[in-house]
């Protein structure tokens, strides 16, 4: 990793006695897409607010673009773009006027402002919607406009707090291709989400559970560590009855229902498709058995389970 542009060291936030962010430590390198994952209330937005200079940490420290967030929040704000989890542009103004406003707020004027607006429109593919009032834009486009406003002053780092929440799957894919393009062009992207499938696009992922950063690595490494082995997905009917029996097969690490299917995970090298077919066919009907790759969802379940166990202990 090149020199980090975001660094958090034992960053902490308490509200009253409640610890919302519990001593998280991480670094994000230039041009990296860093995914911050966690359920609602895990502390993602609180971390972002501290990193953006919006909220003073209760403990620890963080630097963003070389500025300490507690000591020089205004410098931090000038160096970053921030898209909050709530749509907060001006609904009664059109796309151009929103961009013009945010450009002006970041100190742009005249030709520089015009150029910056053109560029933000182009980067986010909004040229067809420039004169439309924000309130009349569909969800996906609206989020792109919010991204454009966060990018208008061409910051080196952007913080996107659940940018795809409540957006349809096709628009989510479009949005993520914008994010990847940004990173390719050198912008560092710190993005939170609770959609695990989106996290696959991230270079590295931090997993938050109840304010603690419980895992931090690339998606591949996380899978190898928390969901080792290979899995088979069985589809058919009346599969539930045989789950306990399948779990008792040699080399089986886990048997989990997954939608209408059942996933059976084997230790590396212990895969036994024939045995699985036999067991499930005895009780019900097996239509198909196929290998599946572990998903980050699996990782999250494994990690969250571990976290819960730790908390109970």
């Amino acid at each position, binding site marked *: 990793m090149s020199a980090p542009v975001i660094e958090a060291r034992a960053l902490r936030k308490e509200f009253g006695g409640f610890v919302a962010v519990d001593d998280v430590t991480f670094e994000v390198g230039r041009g990296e897409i860093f995914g911050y994952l966690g359920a609602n209330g895990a502390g993602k937005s609180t971390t972002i*607010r501290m990193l*953006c*200079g*919006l*909220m003073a940490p209760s403990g620890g420290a963080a630097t963003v673009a070389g500025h300490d967030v507690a000591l020089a929040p*205004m410098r931090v*704000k*000038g160096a970053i773009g*921030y898209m*909050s989890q*709530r*749509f*907060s*542009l*001006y*609904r*009664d*103004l059109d796309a151009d*006027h929103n961009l*013009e*406003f*945010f*450009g*002006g*707020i*970041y*100190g*742009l*004027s005249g030709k520089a402002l015009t150029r910056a607006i053109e560029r933000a429109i182009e980067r986010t593919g909004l040229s067809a919607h420039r004169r439309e009032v924000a309130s009349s834009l569909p969800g996906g486009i609206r989020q792109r406009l919010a991204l454009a406003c966060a990018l208008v002053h061409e910051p080196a780092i952007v913080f996107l707090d659940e940018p795809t929440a409540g957006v349809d799957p096709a628009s989510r894919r479009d949005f993520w291709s914008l994010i990847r393009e940004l990173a390719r062009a050198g912008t560092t992207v710190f993005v939170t989400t609770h959609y695990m499938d989106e996290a696959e696009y991230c270079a590295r992922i931090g997993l938050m559970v109840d304010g603690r950063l419980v895992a931090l690595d690339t998606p591949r490494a996380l899978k190898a560590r928390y969901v080792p082995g290979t899995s088979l997905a069985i589809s058919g009917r009346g599969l539930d009855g045989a789950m306990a029996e399948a779990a008792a097969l040699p080399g089986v690490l886990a048997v989990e229902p997954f939608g209408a299917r059942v996933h059976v995970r084997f230790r590396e090298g212990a895969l036994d498709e024939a045995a699985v077919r036999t067991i499930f066919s005895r009780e019900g009907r097996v239509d198909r058995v196929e290998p599946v790759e572990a998903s980050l969802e699996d990782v999250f379940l494994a990690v969250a389970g571990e976290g819960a166990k730790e908390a109970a202990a």
Partner: protein
Amino acid sequence: MRRFVVRVWALSAKEVRHVLRDPRSLYLALGMPVVMLLLFGYGVSFDLDRLPVAFVDHDHSAASRALRRRFTAGDDFVDVGELDADGAQAALVAGDAMAVIVIERGFERHRARGERATVQVLVDGSEANGATQLRAKAERMLALLGVDGAIRASGAGAPLEARTWTRFNPEGKSAVFLVPGITAYVLAIVAVLLTALTVAREWERGSMAQLFATPVGRLEIIVGKLLPYLAIGTLAVLLVLAVGMWVFDVPFRGSPAALALLSFLFLAGMLGQGLLISVITRSQMVATQAAALSSMLPSMLLSGFVFPIENMPQVLQWITVVIPARYFVEGLRGVLLRGNGLAELWPELLALSVFALVALGVSTARFQRTIA
């Protein structure tokens, strides 16, 4: 410095766009003053009753006594006694009577012959609304008495000629006295309400939080958001004065500089009050109510617009000391009617400056750059 200007400009331009998108606030700011001035000016007024009147009876006849009795038989007037001419003047000045009815010698004789019988009504014009109403009621009453069967029986049915004078405001243009009050009233509502609304909307919609994530300073936000409303308020002042001067012949005898300064300071104070309300409430609903109450009531009731401050109970008189509208009304009357300039109006200007500084200072301090 250049950045400050760019940011304030961006904020102000955006604010103007909001206003143009939804011009209801413009109608409110520019339409309401004119409508109110016309309404008040043409005599829609607060209903007063039991107005004290004194009588000077030079005729001492059955007809004059009947007139006096019938005049005060209803709820509109209360007879405070019969006086001589000097006593009547003194009663007017002291405020014991709001009007004096002078029945001239020969009243009964004239009526009996069917000639013009004259009655003078002297009205205390120093309190414009009361004077307007009193005149209207007296005229109505005299017209009524002129066609009354009992009186007509003694005469041939010629009408009474009612001559009313309003002392201290000889032209009888009540709008002349209303214009300063209406200006203060309307300006207070417009400035406080619009400011409270626009800032509360930013909190409510989450755009305030977004602004805090940018390097814009809180002073920049305040200046940028208030400037357009300062401009709208100034337009409203000019509009009211223009209508007052053209339609109601309101004079402008004093110094334009004093007028500009008075208006600016009063507006600044009202904008500060609106800002403070929205910073505290952060909700459009609550802000609207708080703004309407805190601007309308004092500027209407405690400014000297509707009720003369000298006639208020002592406690209320003390309260008016902290009501900026009071100084604005007083200052405007000075500039428009008495021909005052900066030299005479410095106490009002000073009071308005203090209020503006406190309101803006406290609201700026409360305007913390944190997200709740």
